[in-house]
């Protein structure tokens, strides 16, 4: 290849990558909502992307790359249907689609079907454990390797589970539609949970930063933004978006320049990303105006109190403890119970915190790192170095992050025996 050809080739490759990244979910959604076959839509789009890699360097990048890919993918689906010589029910819809999109080549005027895809991915008939991976693959276009890395599951296992889920969606003829207004809040909950699971549940300060979460944080926020664009009048959608933005804003402060773990109470607010915090405040305010409280709004409120320290220089621990009381009423969980105990310890002393920790089911926390980290912290404050050392050891042994492990080891070694 001549240097010029190489350059054309490279720019065509970059164009394919860019459009795949930008539009994967939209294109899969457009195809799958018409065929009810996610795997088929993904295969057709993958074929179209491969074709683009050959055609675009030769003929140049089309004016409208998305329309080109959609047409190519749709033709694949039609070919496939013809090949099988069965008149699948989707063939007429696909033909109709040809006309539909030939008339409107401006992709901005195509319907955005990603919301329907999100509702299918988190459908009650689909195993909740697969909701998050399905969304990551079909809406964001992540492959099984990336999903496995993010969620700590073997890529092959994830691949098989995704195939099973997609088969079920096709065979059970799960409808690609937006739930009716009376159903929407119920159906929205698993969608929100799946997005939040992608973000990572381990944001309680004691549990520590996590490499996997870093990779997924932006993707989860992006999904929540898609949801907010389409359902602007649901307060929990905005609450979840606010919650994730608050956490994401603090991410740079979770490590010192030397890579050491920095707990929230010791973070310098100057290291927080203020524009992100402002966006979060805007979302949370809008959510409150709808006057329908919910779990994500409460969790976002807790984060909002934490970041107030940037202005006031202090943390309103009493307000945080109040919000955790509300959270435990509304959506009790082990993580919530541990954080609730830690919050009350800040206000009413370590003894109270320890009593609350003791009330949590001991079987459920055997391998739950945040419980042991909080327990160690409280026992240290109560000058019980032996018990604290034991709890630190448990927390260290359950930590995945070496920076967190180093932080806890240092705390443990600073204990002075009585």
């Amino acid at each position, binding site marked *: 290849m001549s240097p010029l050809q190489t350059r054309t080739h490279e720019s065509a490759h970059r164009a394919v990558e860019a459009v795949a990244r930008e539009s994967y979910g939209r294109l899969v959604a457009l195809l799958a909502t018409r065929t009810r076959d996610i795997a088929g839509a993904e295969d057709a789009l993958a074929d179209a992307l491969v074709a683009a890699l050959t055609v675009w360097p030769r003929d140049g990048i089309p004016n409208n790359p998305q329309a080109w890919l959609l047409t190519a993918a749709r033709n694949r689906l039609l070919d496939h249907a013809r090949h099988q010589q069965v008149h699948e029910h989707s063939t007429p819809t696909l033909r109709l689609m040809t006309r539909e999109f030939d008339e409107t080549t401006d992709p901005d005027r195509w319907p955005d079907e990603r919301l329907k895809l999100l509702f299918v991915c988190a459908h009650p008939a689909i195993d909740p454990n697969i909701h998050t991976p399905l969304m990551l693959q079909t809406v964001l276009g992540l492959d099984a390797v990336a999903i496995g890395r993010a969620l700590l599951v073997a890529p092959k296992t994830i691949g098989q589970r995704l195939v099973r889920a997609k088969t079920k969606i096709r065979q059970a003829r799960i409808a690609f539609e937006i739930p009716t207004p009376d159903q929407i809040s119920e159906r929205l909950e698993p969608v929100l949970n799946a997005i939040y699971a992608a973000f990572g549940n381990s944001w309680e300060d004691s549990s520590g930063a996590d490499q996997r979460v870093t990779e997924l944080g932006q993707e989860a926020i992006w999904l929540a933004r898609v949801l907010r664009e389409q359902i602007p009048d649901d307060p929990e959608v905005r609450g979840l978006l606010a919650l994730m933005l608050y956490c994401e804003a603090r991410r740079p402060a979770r490590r010192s320049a030397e890579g050491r773990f920095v707990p929230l109470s010791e973070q310098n607010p100057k290291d927080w990303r203020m524009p992100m915090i402002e966006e979060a405040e805007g979302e949370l305010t809008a959510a409150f105006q709808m006057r329908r409280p919910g779990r994500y709004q409460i969790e976002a409120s807790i984060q909002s109190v934490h970041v107030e320290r940037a202005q006031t220089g202090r943390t309103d621990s009493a307000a945080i403890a109040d919000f955790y009381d509300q959270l435990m009423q509304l959506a009790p969980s082990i993580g919530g119970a541990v954080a609730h105990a830690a919050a009350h310890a800040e206000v009413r002393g370590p003894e109270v915190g320890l009593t609350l920790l003791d009330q949590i089911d001991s079987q459920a926390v055997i391998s739950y790192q945040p419980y042991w980290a909080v327990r160690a912290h409280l026992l240290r404050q109560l000058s019980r170095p032996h018990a604290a050392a034991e709890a630190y050891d448990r927390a260290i042994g359950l930590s995945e992050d070496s920076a967190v*492990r180093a932080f806890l080891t240092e705390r443990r070694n600073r204990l002075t025996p009585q």
Partner: protein
Amino acid sequence: MLYALLIYENPEDFARRESSIESEAYAGAWRAYHRALLDAGIFVGGKPLDAPETATTVRLRDSKREIQDGPYANTKEQLGGFTLLELPSLDAALEWAARCPAASYGTVEVRPIAVEIEPRVTVANSNS
């Protein structure tokens, strides 16, 4: 289900076991991890291995013994130890592998134990 965590380490990691400055943190992390495995009730067995240079390999070829100094694989990362865990699923095994201190500096390979081999035979002497 029984899963083996095979722990691979670099020469520097083997050296760290001896170094007095680093061994405190190194040993501390391993002690804590071992404690967590015991408390979770999943530990079946396992031991650290001595450094690869202490290894000797044995082969029989045409009825002749071939004895060689050093480990089997001539790679930088060497098997440094193994742990057997009783766990419900591969997902759980991966989670415990990620918590293993060696996951941060070396490599932890997760392998299910082959089903046809009677697992409890290996358990008998492992709790010492």
